[in-house]
């Protein structure tokens, strides 16, 4: 492919990950699909039955975190941070970006409990789904997606609140971030799973970043928060 064609083939600068066909001419490896995600039958906070891979992941860009309704430690902080993330990316949510919060205590958290939790935290929002299901299935998903290869963390369901998985199944990108990090860090990490940028976009972002750095240099003498 000619260089010019290559750039124009990347299309518009609107974020659209899931809905756009894979970028032409740049091969990437297909998602492992249910082989890693499983296709477990889960239940949403609206009491709807869904297949984990087919209905929730396939071809989509998603954010997944773990929680349980009675959690009082870091869960509310994480949830409130995720609400901020949601607000910022509102116009993408439910369209090409989806949020899933999965319970680690399915025995306690039925759809009603999850709905109450969502309501309490202002997280009852379109495109944000709370999930429960069979404990075995959820444990399998937790182990497959949130494993750290650390015996103490992996066997302790309470230690899983500090990860937000960022997955773009269309391009098979996997990233993770601590959702307690600042909003800008979390947003930056989410953007890394977006469809690739054009060279023009990259150059333009770089130019804007330099402007920001120059501004900060006036105040601090060196790059500070840019």
């Amino acid at each position, binding site marked *: 492919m000619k260089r010019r064609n*290559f750039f124009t083939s990347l299309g518009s600068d609107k974020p659209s990950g899931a809905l756009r066909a894979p970028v032409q001419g740049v091969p990437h490896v297909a998602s492992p699909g249910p082989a890693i995600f499983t296709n477990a039958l889960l239940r949403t906070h609206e009491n709807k039955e869904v297949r984990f891979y087919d209905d929730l992941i396939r071809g989509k860009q998603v954010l997944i975190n773990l929680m349980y309704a009675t959690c009082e430690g*870091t869960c509310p902080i994480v949830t409130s941070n995720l609400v901020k993330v949601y607000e910022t990316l509102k116009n993408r949510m439910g369209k090409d970006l989806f949020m899933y919060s999965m319970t680690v205590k399915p025995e306690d958290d039925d759809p009603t409990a999850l709905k109450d939790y969502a309501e309490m935290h202002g997280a009852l929002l379109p495109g944000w789904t709370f999930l429960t299901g069979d404990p075995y299935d959820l444990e399998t998903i937790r182990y497959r997606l949130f494993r750290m290869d650390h015996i103490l963390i992996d066997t302790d369901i*309470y*230690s899983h609140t500090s990860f937000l998985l960022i997955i773009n199944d269309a391009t098979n990108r*996997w990233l*993770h971030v601590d959702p307690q990090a600042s909003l800008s860090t979390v947003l930056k*990490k989410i953007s890394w799973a977006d469809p690739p940028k054009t060279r023009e976009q990259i150059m333009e972002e*770089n130019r804007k970043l330099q402007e920001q750095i120059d501004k900060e240099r006036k105040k601090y003498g*060196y790059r500070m928060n840019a």
Partner: protein
Amino acid sequence: MSKPQGRKKKEIRKKEGEVSRRSVLKMGAAAGAATVLSPIILTSKKSSVFGQTGVAEPVLCAPTPVPQSPPHTPFVDDLPVPFPAVPQFLSPAPTKNANIAGGEAARDPHQRWEEFNPSVTYQLEARAGTHQFHRDYLPTYIWGFNGKYPGPTILNAYGVPSLVRFKNSLPLTTSSFGTNKTTIHLHNGHTASESDGFAGDFFDTGLFKDNHYANAYAGIDDFGGFPKGDPREAQHTMWYHDHLMAETANNNYLGMNGAYFLYDQTSPPWEFNTPGSVRLPAFYGLTDFPLILAQKRFCATDTANGRTEAFQVIGAAAPSTDKFTVNGKIQPKLSVRRRKYRFRIINTGVVLPFTLSLHGPDGAQKPMTVVSSDGNLLHEPADCSATSGFPLLEVHVASRMDVVIDFSQFSVGQSVYLKENTQTPQFVSTPTPPDPAPGVPIGTVVMRFDVVGNAIIPDTPPIPDTLVELPPIPAASNPPFEWGFRFIPGRPNAFRVSHSAIPENNQNHVDTDLPFDPFRADHAVLKGSTEEWIIRNDTLAGNWLHPVHIHLEEGRVIERAVCTVPSATGCLPANRTVQAMPPWEDGNNARRDVYPVAGQQSLKIRLAFRDFVGRYLIHCHNMNHEDAFMMVRWDVVETAAELRRRREEINADRIARGEAPLYRKEDLG
């Protein structure tokens, strides 16, 4: 494996442009040294179109169940020697301010640019490629500098300021593993912040970034002379690697690292008797080798695709591994002669320490003389041997240990084994081949040395009893700041700064504590000041050991202690019991930049902050730990007024989060 096939594979390997030790020999001993000083023009043969490298992405194998790596025949590949990076003129020419129009990543202007105007320039391009990890394997998809794993070794000298243009030509689309942004840290160069590979200073595919390395000793402001700075602060063995925020483990596992040696009068690239030289084995690729260690696991060989892919873990986990590689080969062999050799052991991880010992053909342990730790020559060299009291050489992730092995103690035809003592032994093949030496199981052998003859290049004189004089240990100007690892439910990655003189500071702040953020500094120090820091691991013994790395400056370990009464909120001074330190850690004999702390342990160190300002990091160098944000940003500021302002801001932030302030009135300066 049959012989003809072996030969065929060898040819393939040659085609890929790797250099065997023998061909380095042919190039002549001075080649390495000569390239240091004479830039030549090179035209890049493989410039890739933006975001496209032509190397197909790997088809990953299923992550569960975890695959066993394919078998390999031990000791069939020669130890490769990474080719020295060749200086080249850059176009567009490097500039003090970022050349945004020319495609350079946004950054601060270079500090001390006029003072250390680069006289040698290099270009290293991060791109996808393939690498054959063993004769029995097919090529593996990697990301490497100039498409190579390990990356080219940069050989440079103090007094020769240099600039490395790191070009990001990683694939525009990547699937699960690796992130196509990068920021490159020279570990542990005395480097200005904008060239230090700060985790948040990443840049995209298609851009480049000029990292300016002054190659001056620390203490530029206080010491004149040539080269500038305090020559006692020399650092000789370093490595450069990707430091991308939250993706360092993946990118390094894919191969984004290489060695960087700095020479000076004390440790020149030759062995001749020149003034000030400690006369260690020094000919690169002949008597002085980098041993870049890594842990890997591979998928079953995919003959249809012609690949043996690395096993890749998605998400936050680090891969559990079953192969060790040295300079990118599994269980290589190196032909040596009966004389002394210097091996610069670099553990590139990604998560586990190597604990090494040397064994002769009879299985008995043989001495290795440690001459340098973390790239810095020791005051007095120390033996790692069965009788020295320190039988094992721990090389933690990112740590460097330079050892001299004297092969004249062996006879021609004998083989010597470098053994790994703590990690799960490698899977070699089924059935497991017999032990090569008594008490040395084949799976534990990292590499083999074959003594093939008497010395051709005359041996270096005996290692002197004193190598170098160390600079005085910096004075402590404050009650120490403490950096603690804690294991809090929901926050397994907590690593926070506190003030030892403010007790409230030492509580858990599970609700308010914040993880690493490139946009937030948790500590500020004044340029030219010194501080005492305590690094604590408050988890129980048996938990992960955290090798802590501090950017910018080498530190001196004053005390290693273990907490006899563990507690989640830290250790009372009365409960701290001092432990003995190996001579390659003790601040009276060594300078370090990686500080390993096991559960319940603490280390007291002293640091000076010199010459440069800006944003720096302290973090656990287990790479998936730093990716889980066991990392803190701290800043060096120029003036006392600035320090006061920054420290007041940090205090105000903490109070707003419901924490105790970090600084007392007298700390505000």
